[in-house]
């Protein structure tokens, strides 16, 4: 399989003074892939995205985005990459449509035949009825959708999203997920997003990266990661007033045997491992490993 590599990072490290934020990160992202970057606050998610955007230079290692070093990227490169900021209160006095039109004009020298028109984009992010509203009058969720619209303006080949659905209501979240699926299916857009919402990561991402203490602690699809953690399915039951929990790879066979073996089984519950379980288990494992290495050093 020879798919285009859109992002290639080798041995990327980042320190602020004595504080090491990223430690030898190796990463390949292929065209059309959706990657979710997970990790606790301070795990290095934002720094990773900033390095790939070219906002920061790593202290060590090499980065290539769309074939070039993003720190040295020129105007054309900026037009091929979309960034969705977690914005706050900039451009509050602007009206929604003229704000988007401003970025439309900025992108017009680089327009492709299938780039969005301003009104289509407003429609797509569900802000068509807010076209004349001032940005400061928007709710938090509406504001984030406008941020997404700015990121999509140039019909980018690669889209970075930093916690795109923070502050979304369930309806807006559903629509946002549909938009992301459309981008990937119809336009083969490559997407790298950070999120704290593990259900979202599971729904959107082909591949999940878990950052822990500046290293990639896990890298794979949600299913693959779940298989790495012992037992993918959890079976719970009660018998003779006692509660039991058992993790297994093949729940059906286990339950069949269990019922055959023990007639007192009651309150049977079979639960497939969610990404959340996997995530928490993996982070706990890494923390235990870290504590051990530190203990040996001491």
């Amino acid at each position, binding site marked *: 399989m020879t798919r285009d590599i859109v992002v290639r990072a080798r041995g990327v490290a980042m320190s602020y003074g004595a504080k090491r934020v990223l430690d030898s990160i190796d990463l390949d992202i292929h065209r059309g892939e959706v990657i979710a970057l997970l990790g606790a606050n301070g795990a290095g998610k934002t720094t990773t995205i900033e390095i790939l955007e070219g906002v920061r230079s790593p202290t060590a290692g090499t980065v290539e985005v769309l074939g070039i070093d993003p720190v040295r990227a020129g105007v054309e490169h900026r037009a091929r990459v979309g960034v969705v900021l977690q914005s706050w209160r900039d451009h509050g006095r602007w009206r929604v449509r003229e704000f988007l039109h401003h970025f439309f004009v*900025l992108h017009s020298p680089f327009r492709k035949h299938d780039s969005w028109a301003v009104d289509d984009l407003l429609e797509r992010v569900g802000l068509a009825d807010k076209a004349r509203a001032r940005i400061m009058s928007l709710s938090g969720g509406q504001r984030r959708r406008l941020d997404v619209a700015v990121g999509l303006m140039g019909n980018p080949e690669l889209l970075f999203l930093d916690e795109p659905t923070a502050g979304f209501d369930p309806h807006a979240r559903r629509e946002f997920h549909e938009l992301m699926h459309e981008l990937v299916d119809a336009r083969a857009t490559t997407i790298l997003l950070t999120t704290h919402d593990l259900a979202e990561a599971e729904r959107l991402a082909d591949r999940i990266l878990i950052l822990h203490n500046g290293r990639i602690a896990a890298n794979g699809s949600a299913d693959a990661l779940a298989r790495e953690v012992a037992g993918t399915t959890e079976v719970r039951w009660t018998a003779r007033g006692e509660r039991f929990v058992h993790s297994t790879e093949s729940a059906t066979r286990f339950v069949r045997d269990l019922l055959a073996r023990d007639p007192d089984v009651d309150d049977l519950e079979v639960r497939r491992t969610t990404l959340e379980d996997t995530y928490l288990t993996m982070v706990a494992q890494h923390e235990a490993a870290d504590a051990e290495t530190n203990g040996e050093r001491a």
Partner: protein
Amino acid sequence: MTITSGAVRAGAMRGWVEFRNSLQTPTDVIYYVIGAAGFSAAVWFFRDDVIPELGISTAAVIFPSVLALMTLFVGAYGLATLVSTEREDGTLLRLAMQPAGTFTYAWGQTVRTLLELAFTFGMFTILASILVPDLWARGIGGASIAVGFLLLGVLACLPLGFVVGSLFNNPRSVGGWGFLVTGAIVAASGVFLPLSELPTWVQIAGQVLPLYWLGLGLRSALLPADFAVVELGESWRTLESIGMLGLWAAMGLVLAPILLQRVARRESLATLATRREKAMQRV
């Protein structure tokens, strides 16, 4: 469309939208109106206060001084405050992530400031001319020279605004300290007190700064030639005025793009998030 013409168009649009937004904001409009009305009132108050030896009213002397002051206030102080505010709130970062975005931002701010200056000058000049008709003793010729000096003054003050706004990332310190510094510059500029009446060290400081030369140039354009005897060296020193304003403009035009680019590159998601949290705590 080429990259440059796209950015020029986007920046012009940006400047216009920002200025129009300001005109649609009541607090901004009140600020403009009080400024123009207050200074016009000062000119009107001194309309009959004729300087005996020169035969002109103090009002005529105040008028060019206020124009000089407005240039510094809107073009440097106001712009610097805006630039540091828009660093803090992420406007600059958002633009910097777009193709040719930092240029578009700078050009947009330039257009906005020029519109605000034209509007402020216009309101004050019209109001003051109605109240005190004999401000224009030198006629069309004098007025055109004054416009020339104003343009040169704007060229000296705008880059200064960008430089100061880029150097400080806290808009509140630019607003507060900047106001004091601007006040000191005004005091040492001879626009309200003739420089010849101030201590020598203030005279020296004043002649290093651009405001003195802008005020001098405007007075030379609008006041009778005899008035020059009141000035330092008893001369209008026209060449020196043009030279000093040109020097400030050149310095700023070299420094401003370098600093703004550097600042825009340093902006990041993390610094923005930190400032957002800080500002939220303050609220």
